[in-house]
Each structure stands twice: as structure tokens, then as C-alpha cells.
């Protein structure tokens, strides 16, 4: 059947398991219900009906245990940085992070202030940076599509799957 027998069966596709897994991962990015500052308003707008994250299979989860994606929308101060790291640690792998807006990228307008962490990538690793102050929903969606590209081309940690 399929490629092995060099035979085409209607309704059956053949593809590497890596691509299948990555396809399912990128098509159901559940993101953490989590907002730090004003960018969160824009993130909510992106999730709501007009821009509609649901069409990417993206729904928010109120628990980091069920989330694949953390969108960090807002200024990261010293106090919240520890909480963000805790939440990231509580997420199961594979997990991805989008730094949304100037503040989450490098402190933005608050760069160098006394209580500000200059970018969330100083606390947890970031996959996609979405610039803007705040980014429009289109920009955030573009960031999500970029992340989907990254996920589609990722390798699979087979040893982690076996364990």
C-alpha cells in the first residue's frame, strides 16, 4: 500500500512520521491564557472573532500543562519574570514562545529602567519575535505563521517520545 508498493490508494497519503507529527503540532497550537500588559489586549483581539485564532487550531488554555505556546504580551518586570519562568517550566515539551511587542523583545520604551527585564529572551528562550507597540493582530498572526513554519521543519526527539 502507498509508496512502498508503489500503488496509489484513494484517501490515503504517505508521508514521513516527522512531518505528520509536526503537522499535527503546528495545527493545534494551544496557547497559554496569559497577559502581562497592553499587548495582551491586542492578543485578545487576535483571539476573538474578527481575527479568529481558532482557524489556526489555536485556542487558549488556562493551564500551562495543556499549553504548547506561550505568547509573552507585554513588559516583563523583575517581579513577573520569575512567574513567567515558572509557567514556562510547567509547560510540557515541545513548547514554543512568541515575544510579542517591543517590551517583550528588549524592554522597548522601558529599556534600561530599574525594574525592567530587557527582553523575555533573558529569562526563557524565544522562537519568534513580533515587533510593534503593540503589534497589530495581523502582525501577531504573521508571527504565528512563522512559528508554524519553524515547527513544520523541526526535528523530532525520538528518544523523548519513546520514554
Amino acid at each position, binding site marked *: 500500500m502507498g509508496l512502498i508498493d508503489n500503488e496509489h490508494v484513494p484517501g490515503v497519503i504517505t508521508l514521513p512520521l516527522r512531518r505528520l507529527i509536526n503537522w499535527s503540532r503546528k495545527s493545534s497550537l494551544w496557547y497559554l491564557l496569559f497577559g502581562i500588559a497592553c499587548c495582551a489586549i491586542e492578543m485578545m483581539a487576535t483571539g476573538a472573532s474578527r481575527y479568529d485564532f481558532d482557524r489556526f487550531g489555536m485556542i487558549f488554555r488556562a493551564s500551562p500543562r495543556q499549553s504548547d505556546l506561550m505568547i509573552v504580551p507585554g513588559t516583563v518586570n523583575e517581579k513577573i519574570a520569575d512567574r513567567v519562568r515558572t509557567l514556562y517550566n510547567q509547560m510540557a515539551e515541545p513548547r514554543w514562545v512568541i515575544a510579542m511587542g517591543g517590551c517583550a523583545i528588549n524592554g522597548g520604551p522601558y529599556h534600561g529602567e*530599574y525594574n525592567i527585564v530587557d527582553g523575555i529572551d533573558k529569562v526563557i528562550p524565544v522562537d519568534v519575535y513580533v515587533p510593534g507597540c503593540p503589534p497589530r493582530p495581523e502582525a501577531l498572526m504573521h508571527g504565528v505563521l512563522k512559528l508554524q513554519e519553524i515547527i513544520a521543519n523541526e526535528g523530532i526527539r525520538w528518544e523523548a517520545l519513546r520514554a
Partner: protein
Amino acid sequence: MHWSVADERRDEARSAETSRRTEGAGEAVGVEMPAAVATVMQVLRERFPHLDVVHKEDEWVEARVAPDELPTVARFLRDDARLQFNFLSSIAAVDYVEKGFEVVYHLLSLPEGRRKLILKVTPAGDRDNPEVPTVTDIWPTANWHEREAWDLMGIRFTGHPDLRRILLREDWVGHPLRKDYQDRRPVRERQFKEDWIGRSG
């Protein structure tokens, strides 16, 4: 530029009217304003003759109070029937470096909204330990305001029920809004995903 004598006359008439209006408005404000201001100044000077009470602008009366006298003055301001300063609008702390700190209380009388007072207190003690008695027992709202002033400016409010930091982390060193504050936080390195796979940090 005027195109006719009639235009010119009309313009003159208009400008005269405008100036009359502004004068009238000015007088009206001028009459109303000192009434509230005068009451506050009179009552304060009567009860505390040694206090430095001035009227600088708008409806704000300013009074400079010694720290040890603050609780007495504050309680009087709140309880006196002629003043009724029942709302502490804000507490601010200022760092003048050479002149030291200053704590500023903005008071408002809700029964008579135009009655406003600024209390200025220069803390006792040196720069490492500036002290002002608390007013939490007089205006409970002062609780968080004073915690904020402690957190960011390092003013110690003696008698405060729970003088902890309110905005910054508990283990913060120093008070960042002081003019001589030095940022001594350790440098945070950029994180890379390769280091995080299969572990938490």
C-alpha cells in the same frame, strides 16, 4: 485688515465685549476661590499659629509641618468640622539630594470639593534613615501610599502596621527613585532553546 468702516466698528465692539467677559469671569473665580482658601488658612493659623501656611496657586493651600507634629495636625484636619479633610488623595516623596527628602500629602475635603491642602513634611533623621510618623490610623488609605514611598524612596514611616515593599520584589536592594540609586542587578544572559530542551531552568 478692515474692508470698511462698518467692519472696523463691529470688530471693536466684539473685542470690547470679549474683554468684558474675561474680566467678569476672572472676578467670579477670584471671588469664589479665596473663600475656600481663606477658611483653611484661617482655621489652620488659629489652631497652629506657628505653622507656615501659604497660598500659592489655584485652590491649593500649602502647609509645612514638622514630622513629630504631623499626627496631631493630620487628626485635626480630618476631624475639625470647618475643614473635614476626609480624603487623602496621595502621598508623594521627593528627593532634593542636598536638601534631603520631602514627603507631600495631598488632602481633599469631599463635603466641600474646593477645599484642598498640601502638607509638606521634611523627614527627621539622616539620608540612610529618613523617618516620618505614619498617618494610617487617620486615613487608612495611607497604608499602601506609605508602603510605596518606602519601597521606591526609602522613607521609613514609623508606626506603620506593615511596612513592606509593595511594588518591587521582596529581595530588592535599595530604593530606585532616589537620585543616587545605582542599578546593581546581575546581568541576565540571553537564553537559547538548545540549553532548555529536556530540562527546566
